[in-house]
């Protein structure tokens, strides 16, 4: 699936998007965040405090316990500060 990063998550990971193939036991948004963090380096830095990371699945806001199944695109970002 495609993973997008925005704002300081993008800066810490070092790329705006990447293609990932997580193992089947990665079922939820929180699972994926943990799996990405375990890669170390920029990913570990980006996900060091999962409580401040928000996610969208196929362009809709979701909670950490949302299931990934069938999603084509997931985005991770900090709380929004537009307006």
């Amino acid at each position: 699936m495609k993973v997008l990063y925005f704002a300081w998550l993008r800066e810490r990971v070092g790329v705006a998007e990447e293609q990932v193939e997580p193992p089947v036991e990665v079922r939820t948004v929180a699972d994926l965040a943990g799996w990405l963090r375990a890669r170390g380096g920029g990913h570990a830095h980006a996900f060091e405090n999962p409580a401040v990371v928000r996610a969208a699945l196929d362009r809709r806001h979701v909670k950490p316990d949302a299931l990934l199944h069938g999603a084509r695109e997931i985005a991770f970002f900090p709380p929004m500060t537009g307006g």
Partner: protein
Amino acid sequence: MPAPSVSTLDAADLPLDAFQVRVQAEVFDASTETTGLVAGRTDVGAVVTFTGLCRADDQNGTPLAALTLEHYPGMAEEEMDRLLQEARTRWPLSGARLVHRYGRMVPGDPIVLVVTASAHRGAAFAAAEFLMDWLKTNAPFWKKEERPGTAADGTWVEAKGTDDAAADRWQKG
């Protein structure tokens, strides 16, 4: 500069472009947007326009040289559409516009525009305030601030608890 992406929500009895959201780099003109909403109509009794501008100081009073707004293309428009549809289920609106800019802005530049039109003023005011509160906490935009006289490329703005509180007051039940 890319062309602004446009999304339209129609209703059978309303002009084709009565409801519109846009995400764009260009400056918007509040007056053009408002005129487009009411021109030739006689069912609108109230129009509320909100413009959010870049200030020369941040929320803590620290001087600001510029802001850069990053957004999530595609989702930004879709989320703004969803907010507008939610507003329409809550208030009888004759039309509305949501325009949000991205890119670099200096103090004095307009950032966001909300226009609501209704037969009655209460609905127009409430819907405009609801849309702004929810835009702040739900539309995928992020601000980075540049300080005067610093070489660093800026600091990401932290979300405010007061914005969450403002959005929460619209929660139903």
